[in-house]
């Protein structure tokens, strides 16, 4: 794949995704999200349940049509997947789903499922790998091809799903909570595998997870979402050690650390609001310890911060507001 090094591999521009519901206002699961992924990067997306992480993943791969905005892959738009076959140029953009039990057809052998994908990608394509190789690449014996999904554990199934993605020779894999459904040891195994693939095969990875630790341990960059919006974006180290958005701060403080000291995590007040009726202004303000008048009235826009990345917060970007906040 040849793209100019300057252009990012994936660009999300002001993406909006809505789900319509009968009898109730539509949910804006993505309320104008913009970010980019450069080739070879490993980007993590974190946020609470329902904040739109999966929707973002689906939008990026074309499974969720955009209400507005655009998403470009390798410089060209990602068309939503309709009844037509997916265009070949989008095949390098793959996705891995959360539920390893649902992502394989329980009624077909592994070999049949992989063969379908290989055939679709084009058997003669350069660099194409036979099924056995694919399975070995993800740490399974080639003989596994003859078996049915129910004969595998969750971690193994997730590996098979990764093998299926690899069959298309992907350049970007969007992984939506790939390890959340797995046991601690399986989690580590699959996460390690993903990182290995990303490093060794040069696959760009967007990893979505509600588990901050997983993202922190794997990704170079972190994107923090809240209620359909990105509130903070930056290199993992900066976000971890100097989180600027009050939400990111709360999120980090809520993670319990297994050090045996008995230290209690800090709770974040309030509940995630109904995305169908988001709060005015900054969407986080009802739960924000630093909330002040401008927050209630106008949504903050993203501004760069020291140490890399950007944050959308009035308390960060308006000095006088900040002063007020501190005084209060």
């Amino acid at each position: 794949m040849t793209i100019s090094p300057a252009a990012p591999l994936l660009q999300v521009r002001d993406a909006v995704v809505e789900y319509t519901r009968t009898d109730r206002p539509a949910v804006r699961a993505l309320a104008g999200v913009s970010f980019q992924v450069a080739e070879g990067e490993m980007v993590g997306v974190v946020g609470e349940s329902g904040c739109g992480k999966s929707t973002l993943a689906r939008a990026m791969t074309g499974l969720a049509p955009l209400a507005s905005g655009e998403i470009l892959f390798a410089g060209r738009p990602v068309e939503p997947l309709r009844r037509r076959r997916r265009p070949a140029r989008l095949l390098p953009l793959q996705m891995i789903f959360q539920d390893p039990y649902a992502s394989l057809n329980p009624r077909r052998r592994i070999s049949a499922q992989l063969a379908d994908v290989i055939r679709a990608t084009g058997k003669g394509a350069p660099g194409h790998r036979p099924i056995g190789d694919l399975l070995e690449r993800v740490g399974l014996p080639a003989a596994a091809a003859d078996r049915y999904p129910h004969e595998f554990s969750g971690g193994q199934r997730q590996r098979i799903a990764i093998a299926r993605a690899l069959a298309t020779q992907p350049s970007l894999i969007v992984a939506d909570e790939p390890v959340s459904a797995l046991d601690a040891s399986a989690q580590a195994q699959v996460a390690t595998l993903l990182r290995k693939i990303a490093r060794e095969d040069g696959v760009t990875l967007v990893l979505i997870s509600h588990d901050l630790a997983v993202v922190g341990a794997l990704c170079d960059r972190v994107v923090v979402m809240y209620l359909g919006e990105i509130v903070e974006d930056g290199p993992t180290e900066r976000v971890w050690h100097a989180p600027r958005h009050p939400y990111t701060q709360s999120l980090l403080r809520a993670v319990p650390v297994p050090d045996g000291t008995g230290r209690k995590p800090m709770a974040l007040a309030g509940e995630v609001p109904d995305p169908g009726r988001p709060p005015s202004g900054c969407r986080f303000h009802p739960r924000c310890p630093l909330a002040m008048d401008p927050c209630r009235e106008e949504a903050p826009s993203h501004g760069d911060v020291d140490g890399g990345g950007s944050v959308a917060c009035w308390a960060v970007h308006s000095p006088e507001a900040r002063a007020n906040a501190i005084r209060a």
Partner: protein
Amino acid sequence: MTVVGHRKDQASALAPAWWRRPFPRYVRRRLGSSALILLGVTLVAFLLTTVVPANPETANLGQRALSDPETVRRFREHYGLDRPLPLQYLTYLGNLLRGDFGQSQQTLRPVSQDLLQFAPATLELVLSATLVALLVGVLCGVAAARRRGGWFDRITRLASLTGVSLPIFWIALVASVVFFRGLRLLPGSGRLDPALVKPPQVTGFLTVDSLLAGDWHAFGSAVSHLVLPSAVLAVSVVGMVLRFTRTAVLEALGTDFVKAARAKGLRERDVLWGYAVRFAFGPLVTATTLSFGFLLAATVYVEQQFSWGGIGQYAYRSSTNLDLSAVMGVSIVIALIFVLINLAADLLYALFDPRIRLR
């Protein structure tokens, strides 16, 4: 909020608030789709009667009159059979809206009057059969679920499978020979001892009407006439009710909330009836709806055997005699009952299962 949303809100702002609440909204939506189904049914009924090649006059004129073209022409004119089809349909629909189903060539009465007379007879029969089936089915189903795999479970399984495997026309015959002719236990035809005078029609249910009239004699007779046919009908659906109950209760017994209820220290009886059976409500409503629909069709056999004089016999008679207005009327009424039952089931479902209301 989008523009579309605004417009919609303004439009419905005229309606009272409760009308816009989720449940009434749900009711409205379901009512709308039911009406659509009924419209479809009228069309199908109408089309059917037009594809039937035989002429209604054959069934309705004497052999000699049939050979007289003038008599035949007058007959066709009188029943509007000489007009173009779409016009006939539109006229028919218009009349329907006014409650006019046309005149039966068989009974020479307005079809609506016939239906009013026969439909309650059938409903009484089907309802009592459903009640019997529900009572027996639920009790046995719960008992079978409690001792899954036990002897009672195995016996009821076989019994309920046997129940659905019996041809109704055959057990009706057998039951009538055994209980009526053989044992002389129960009356075998009609709805009331013919020597008794019918109580004045209020609901059309003889059991209810006789009670309203305070006529115990007639009540006893009506009930005893009801026993055999409704038992025959119940036999064929009690198995379904039982199996649905059993499956649902079993499913409920495996859920976390039943475990949680047990862990709360509730008595097993309370867990069973308060939690597990409660959860089976949805499937039970489904089973009731299904069996009601089934029974509505099955009454044709039973009414014939027991000379019940309900809508099943009317349907059979009018369709064999090509009494077109009656055929259309009876199709529509059967469909109406069916649709209403389904509607009631859905609403009950929504009322009892709070999760559905907001869907």
